[in-house]
């Protein structure tokens, strides 16, 4: 049974979702199931990564059909790492949701849908089949739609219309790309496609196909000029939802880009330039977008976009160092962004406001909590030696190696703006004397929560904070992981062998 270890997280999430649906109205049972299930999931994910680390890439041929005929699930180090990150963020947000999401939403399927989302994320990371990836993307999309709109407030709906349209558009483009890919090769298995695509004579069509994937995934990853759905919507749902969105949703797009452009397509000159130009403009647009915002979650939203630029830049430079940098950044970013949106959620519960102009006093009123919040905030900035710092070493170093000076400049610019924005936010939200905000009668202020709820909200911030600190201070471990991932991505033979020859083993 250990051979199938890698799909256990999928099975677990699916089982959780189904069980949670049976417990439709019983929110306290749901909380218990969700948190304990997520804990189990974390244990599985840790074990999976360790197992993959020691025993190499693992595969499961679903239905016992050997590749490329069935659907293959693959856990290489990259996938296993992302599954682990999803598990970490998942556990954190599960707990945070238990504490923060208001009962009406919980009674309308919040938790089952949440676990369907985690299922989708895990599936997207683990699948080795391009159409299966599309299906996972769809479940991610539909769950995110529902989580985005659950409660149906005005802002939620307005944001959701844009989110919906543009993500559907991305799916259509993705599907178009799959159609072309299938039309050229007759295959869907990504490992098989590596060889099949290489064998296609018409390289122009291969390039066209690659560009279609680039645009499709680019929308999901929220890169310039395709990111519009993100700032329009991320600040509208409950904070718990924003957290999982901010941490993981765009990263699936990044994952897919990295996977497709290391496994199936080779970067030619055009693609490389396109990626780098996109990266630079993404860094730029995201950064300056964050400067002008006043809503905490909007600031974070733009920073989500901005920092995607780092990863795309790493992919575009396509050296082992660069990819390692991108992967390291991805690891760091998932943890930190999830945490930041949770922080914004706690701040909201404290003051019932998201506007940094109106907020204030938090350092004076909640000093320990503020210091706790410093961890994700400064990790995000990449204050050395916190987690965001290390990948920049790789990225800038790779920039010098490949003589991409504009990329270096953009990375520095984005880092600087991030620093500035976070520091400004700190000054406004934590230091300043805030406005006198009206007391809302029914608002679930933090102080009115039960102590269990308080713990459920703060503990995940502590947990992710500790993970961030681990990433920063034990950067060696993470860098080794990132390097091995980069190595495996660039030398994809192990992946291909694991998928295509596993039946013969």
């Amino acid at each position, binding site marked *: 049974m250990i051979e199938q270890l890698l799909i256990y997280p999928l099975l677990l999430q699916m089982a959780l979702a189904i069980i949670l649906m049976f417990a439709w109205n019983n929110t306290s049972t749901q909380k218990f199931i969700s948190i304990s299930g997520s804990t189990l999931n974390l244990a599985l994910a840790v074990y999976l990564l360790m197992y993959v680390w020691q025993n190499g890439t693992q595969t499961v041929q679903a239905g016992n059909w050997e590749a490329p005929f069935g659907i293959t699930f693959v856990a290489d180090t990259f996938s296993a790492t992302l599954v682990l990150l999803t598990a970490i963020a998942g556990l954190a947000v599960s707990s945070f949701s238990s504490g923060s999401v208001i009962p009406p939403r919980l009674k*309308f399927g919040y938790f089952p849908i949440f676990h369907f989302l985690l299922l989708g994320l895990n599936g997207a990371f683990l699948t080795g089949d391009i159409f299966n990836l599309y299906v996972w993307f769809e479940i991610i999309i539909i769950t995110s739609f529902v989580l985005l709109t659950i409660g149906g407030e005005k802002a939620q709906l307005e944001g959701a219309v844009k989110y919906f349209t543009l993500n559907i558009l991305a799916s259509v483009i993705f599907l178009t790309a799959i159609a072309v890919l299938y039309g050229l090769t007759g295959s869907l298995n990504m490992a098989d496609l590596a060889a099949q695509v290489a064998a296609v004579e018409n390289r122009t069509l291969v390039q066209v196909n690659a560009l279609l994937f680039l645009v499709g995934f680019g929308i999901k990853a929220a890169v310039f*000029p395709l990111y519009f759905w993100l700032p329009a919507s991320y600040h509208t749902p409950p904070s718990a939802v924003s957290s999982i969105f901010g941490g993981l949703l765009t990263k699936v797009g990044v994952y897919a880009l990295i996977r497709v452009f290391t496994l199936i397509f080779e970067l030619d000159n055009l693609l490389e330039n396109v990626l780098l130009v996109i990266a630079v403009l993404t860094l730029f647009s995201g950064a300056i977008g964050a400067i002008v915002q006043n809503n905490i979650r909007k600031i974070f939203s733009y920073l989500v976009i901005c920092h995607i630029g780092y990863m795309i830049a790493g992919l575009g430079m396509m050296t082992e160092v660069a990819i390692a940098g991108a992967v390291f950044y991805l690891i760091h970013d998932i943890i930190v962004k999830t945490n930041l949106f949770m922080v914004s959620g706690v701040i909201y519960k404290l003051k019932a406001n998201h506007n940094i102009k109106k907020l204030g006093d938090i350092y004076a009123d909640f000093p320990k909590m503020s210091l706790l919040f410093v961890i994700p905030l400064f990790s995000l900035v990449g204050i050395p030696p916190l987690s965001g710092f290390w990948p920049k070493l790789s990225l800038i170093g790779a920039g010098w190696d490949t003589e991409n000076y504009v990329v270096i400049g953009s990375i520095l610019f984005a880092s600087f703006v991030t620093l500035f924005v976070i520091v400004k936010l700190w000054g406004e939200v934590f230091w300043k004397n805030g406005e006198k905000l009206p007391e809302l009668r029914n608002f679930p202020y933090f102080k009115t929560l039960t102590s269990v709820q308080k713990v459920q909200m703060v503990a995940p911030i502590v947990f992710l904070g500790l993970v961030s600190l681990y990433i920063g201070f034990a950067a060696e471990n993470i860098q080794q992981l990132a390097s091995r991932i980069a190595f495996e991505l660039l030398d994809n033979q192990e992946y291909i062998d694991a998928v295509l020859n596993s039946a013969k083993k």
Partner: protein
Amino acid sequence: MLTAILSGFFFSLFLVFAGKFFKGKLAVLSALVPLGLFVYFASFIKRVSEGEIITQQYEWVPSFGVNLNFTLDGLSLLFSLLITGIGFLVFAYTAEYLKGHKYLDRFYGYLGMFMGAMLGLVLSDNLISLFVFWELTSISSFFLIGFNNTSQASRRSAILALAVTGSGGFLFLAGSLLLGGVAGTYSITEMVNLSPEIIGSPFYLWIVILLFGAAFTKSAQFPFHFWLPGAMKAPTPVSTYLHSATMVKAGIYLLLRFTPVLGGEEIWNTTLIIIGGITMFYSAVHTLFRTDLKGVLAYSTISVLGILVFLIGLGTEYALTAAAVYIVVHALYKATLFLVTGIIDHETGTRDVTVLSGLRKVMMPVAIAGFLAAISSAGMPPTIGFVGKDLVYESTLHMGDWSTVLTILAISTNVLVLYAGFVAGIKPFTGRLPERHSKVHMPGFLMWLPPMILALLGLIIGIYPAFIDGPIVKGVVKAVGMAGEEVHLKLWHGFNFILLLSAITLTLGILLYFLLKPSKKREKAIAKFDFIAPKELILKFGSGVWHFSNLWTRVFQNGFLRNYVSTIILFLVVLVGYSLFNGEQEFYIDFSSFSRMTYYEMILMGIMFLSVLFVVGARSRLTAVVAMGVVGYAICLMFVIYSAPDLAMTQFSIDTLTVILFVLVLSSLPKYLSISDYKMRIIDGVLSIGFGLLITLISLEVLSEPVNKDVSNFYADNAYILAKGKNVVNVILVDFRGSDTLIEISVLTVAALGVFSLLKLRLKRDDRELKD
């Protein structure tokens, strides 16, 4: 040494949890931490002065070549002693200065963190580790400047300071990585040996520019100096410690540290002389226009930092010795002056030098300390300031062609620095004690003793310069790559030209002090020129950036979904279209591979095409929906014709259900109006047709390519034999690719849950505020 560095951090961490115990009388105990460290570092003086270099090595992130290798040589030792020594006095002083302050524990926490970071900075041999600590000093500085965080001015100053030093930090990072890449190591010790290769590399210029960026921002060189006067918003102990004695000298440290690696080249020396020269004179002049004691001191600090850069730029052994001495001199007297200012501020409640006078009558020991510091800053014998100033003139006079200009510059600067020192150290204590200050009393000894100690030290080592010459200054000079044989510190060089220059300096300075009283009027007058001051220019630039950002963000994130869609489609069409028509393979379509057209297919397509147009042009919602239905049915028939019965069934059922859905909600859907104007329709039409055409062309070219059908053939061959089904499509759905289907029904389930919650979950009016 790691322990030494970490002790600062541990101390801060400790205060986070045990802070409340340290707000009261126990606070002074925290001074034991720097004191212990001072003793620890002092114990190395002998070994270091004998030329030994003490190293300690710890692994950290070997993958990046980053380690915690610490090196204690003369330069590091000087800085370590300053950091811990002045740290000790400042810690002690603070216990009194902020006695009873609500956040005293925080303050100590930041100070401890800063001390640790600063020690790390000066001890690291690894460039990246050095950078790590470098940034941490900026962060501690940020928290300390913003300590009075409810004041908007404090917050602004903190952010501005961090913005400037932080941007320098990023340049530093880029430079470090470049340098590390060129050298193949991040070890500074190893880089010294590789100096010729580094200087010879094509990246040398880049490296120098980037490191200068770091040093100039941190050490407040023109035009990046402006953050430092703002940093005076911090409580005085901070100004004393960070913004005069230690942190601002990190840039100086960096330049000194890299002199043996990168120095000796013209670009290095010239740039430093010019920037240092401008800085020292420009800011010295500024002291004439300040009335706030801390403002005066801030500008004079910048001026001295300029002098130091200037000296490093001169680059001779004289100059570097002068720099080493000047670091000590300045640390001693400027710290004293700041502490004195702090006392004045603390006791009288004002730092406005125009209203301060006669305070000697109420605080004689403070006045003495101020006086000693002032004469040291003036470079009067027998203070160490005198020794330092002599060395400066000595250095400038050795500069050949430029010696006259440089010397005059140095003299002018020193005159003004003298003025500033007198204004800060003497002016408040002389003259008549105003009525409202008559009740002012002596501060506790914890406050007046530290400046007194520093002032006396300045006097003592002025009289016995050998006290620091051998043990410390020589070490610094050797550490920066000089022989250390040429120059020996002496108080008295006899009557010579340099003494004459000193005399001129003193005379002019004292004259200036008596002729030009600090005045508000002057301060206001200079404010008129603020608009061309670097700070204002940079702030204007910043506001320009803000406006540009605002514009850019509004242009792209303009709120109009249609613009978002058009942008994405345009991007796709241009990119993919470019690729399709400019790729290796010329665009071609192989019509011969296509099947024959039959009339019924054409009719079907015709109907479908017209229906689509009908949908697009329909005036009413229902008509559009009905026409959509026709499109769906046509597709269904198409699936029949092209051998896909399962698809036909599914398409038809789903189409019907979609129609039902529409019909059920149609009356609550908005009216079906044509809102967009004619021009938009044309533009959108062109874009859409371009997009559609692109898809058509791509698909035709793909169809002209051969395709491998192994996978499908496998399904067909094994559907019955292995999977026991004859409808291959269904076998694929439930077996070969059953995982797709499992997720697909999950998608459906979630969609249904979504519909359910969208329609059933209505927050009641009372629940509107129930937010999460």
